């Protein structure tokens, strides 16, 4: 164990209820989780265990019903919308199962998107987006539209988009869920390299133990609660 550090992200007694009246579903029932800088955390659990809900709260895409979410000790619910947007823009990067690229928009333009909202000049956007695409191995495909790219390539574009603003945290929700085994392995190798070489903190949701094995820490959800949280030896 290293010396005690401040957690980068912390969930405190988080609950989340969906729906109203008789149809309510309690997705999270009081979750505590600390993520430290430089960690690679895999979150596992069956569908409906609350792992994706926790992920959305970590990404400031959704707000908890009760409890507190702190980023570097600052409670997120106290932040105005524009600050949250800035947080999503330059501190957090997202990778989704369904890639979530803008259709009919080139890979380069997709990767530039976070920079557009960060008020980066057009010429610098171009340079940084090209670099990010090159880092994920897509140099030469800048002009391709998502429908001209394979699933693995689309996920690489999404990773480049997540990285282009040099975030501290990468949040990946089933990043390999739509990919075959070989492509999955390539994507995971990319994530591991980002974590190891650039010190980017990664939180990844998956239901695949082979994928979870790439992470340094495994958190398991069941029925809206964390049932196990253990470190793993790096592969």
């Amino acid at each position, binding site marked *: 164990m290293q010396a005690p550090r401040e957690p980068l992200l912390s969930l405190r007694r988080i609950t989340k209820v969906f729906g109203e009246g008789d149809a309510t579903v309690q997705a999270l029932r009081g979750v505590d989780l600390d993520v430290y800088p430089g960690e690679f955390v895999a979150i596992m659990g069956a569908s409906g265990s609350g792992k994706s809900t926790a992920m959305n709260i970590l990404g400031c*895409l959704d707000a908890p019903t009760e409890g507190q979410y702190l980023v570097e000790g600052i409670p997120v619910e106290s932040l105005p*919308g*524009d600050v949250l947007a800035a947080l*999503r*823009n330059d501190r957090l990067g*997202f990778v*989704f199962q369904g890639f979530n690229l803008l259709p009919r928009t080139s890979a380069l333009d997709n990767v530039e*998107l*976070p920079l557009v*909202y960060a008020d980066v000049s057009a010429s610098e956007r171009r340079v940084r987006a090209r670099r990010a695409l090159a880092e994920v191995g897509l140099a030469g495909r800048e002009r391709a539209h998502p429908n001209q790219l394979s699933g693995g390539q689309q996920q690489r574009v999404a990773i480049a988009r997540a990285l282009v603003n040099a975030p501290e945290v990468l949040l990946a929700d089933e990043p390999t869920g739509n990919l075959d085994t070989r492509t999955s392995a390539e994507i995971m190798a990319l994530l591991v390299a980002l974590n190891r070489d650039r010190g980017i903190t990664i939180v990844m949701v998956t239901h695949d133990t082979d994928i979870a094995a790439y992470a340094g820490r495994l958190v398991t959800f069941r029925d809206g609660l964390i049932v196990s949280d253990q470190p793993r030896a790096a592969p």
Partner: protein
Amino acid sequence: MRLATTTGLAVSALLRSKLRSLLTTLGVVIGVAAVIIMQSMGAGATAMVTGELSGMGSNMLMLMPGATQGMGGASLGAPLFTRDDLAAIGRECPAVRAASVMNVRSVRVVTGDENRSTNLYGVSPSYLEIRQWLTVMGRGLTEEDERQGAKVCVIGETNRIELFGSVDPIGAEIRVHDLACTVVGVLEPKGASTFGQDQDDLVLMPSTTYGRRIMGDDRIGVMMLSAVAEDRIDEAKAQVQSLMRQRRRVLEGEDDDFTVRDMRELIAIMGTITGVLTSLLAGVAAISLVVGGIGIMNIMLVSVTERTREIGIRLAVGARARDILAQFLVEAVVLSLAGGMLGLLLGAVGSYAASRVLDLPFSLPPMAAALAVGVSVVVGVLFGVFPARKAAHLRPIVALRFE
């Protein structure tokens, strides 16, 4: 996000679905074009009326009984003028060149087997000179005719065609309100007035004949006068006014019980009338602009729903609510501004074509053009704000999950 970036984004989004963008903005195109065409035709009609009235003789004056009333002529009930008044004007108003009776009524005229209704004018011999109107066949009315109360008449082009066709009318006899008259002249055709009235549908006869034989009343309803020169109109007007006040015994401090108008006033009045008509038509056209705006709002709402995922993605990568608001608002404004420009073009072409067909002078008031384009921007903002706000206030996760 910068405005230039947002605008670029909006333009490329709109170009991605060209047909839909075009159809969406069609309402604004038609609205703006309609406003432009109405304004242009209104301006054309005003120019035409003005031209027509000046063509009637720019140093012409009109004397009517009754106090001046607003836009229209004069109020009823005041005593008519007499032949002595007419003679007095000729004697005592040096700035007046000529004065003519102009009594009008509707009559039936009959020749052989033709029989129609027309306007009968009882006028002095100087009438045609005051109106700057020529005869194309025969002669006008003479002092001789006037003195004798001769049973002669001069007919307008419409009556010549309707009553005589290809037959020479000079010397022929027509019955005007049961009075047999000899046609001595035919007037130069003037065509329809701006308000569609046929100016050639008339018969002129000496005012004495009209007064004694048709009406049995020799008083004078309206007098047409001409000033000796255009720059002496005001002088002529003042002389007539003071003479009439004296002759009609209007007391000091009382209003005139008659009205003297010059052509400039008539032109101004006509301008007001065509102005009101133009505003009315433009108002109707403006409604279609509002309908166009609603069309934009409708499609923008659909577009927001369709692009919910896109909005989710943008929010996830750090778009602020106001970035999304700006994106959709600018899209709506670009759409309606493009519609405004297209409408301006269409309106210009349309009003040119209309001016050709209707034989009106063509003019495109720059104010109307600027207004139409300005209004189309306002329409874009007004009807774009609601869908844009709807988009901006989506919750990121709800937007991302939207199917």
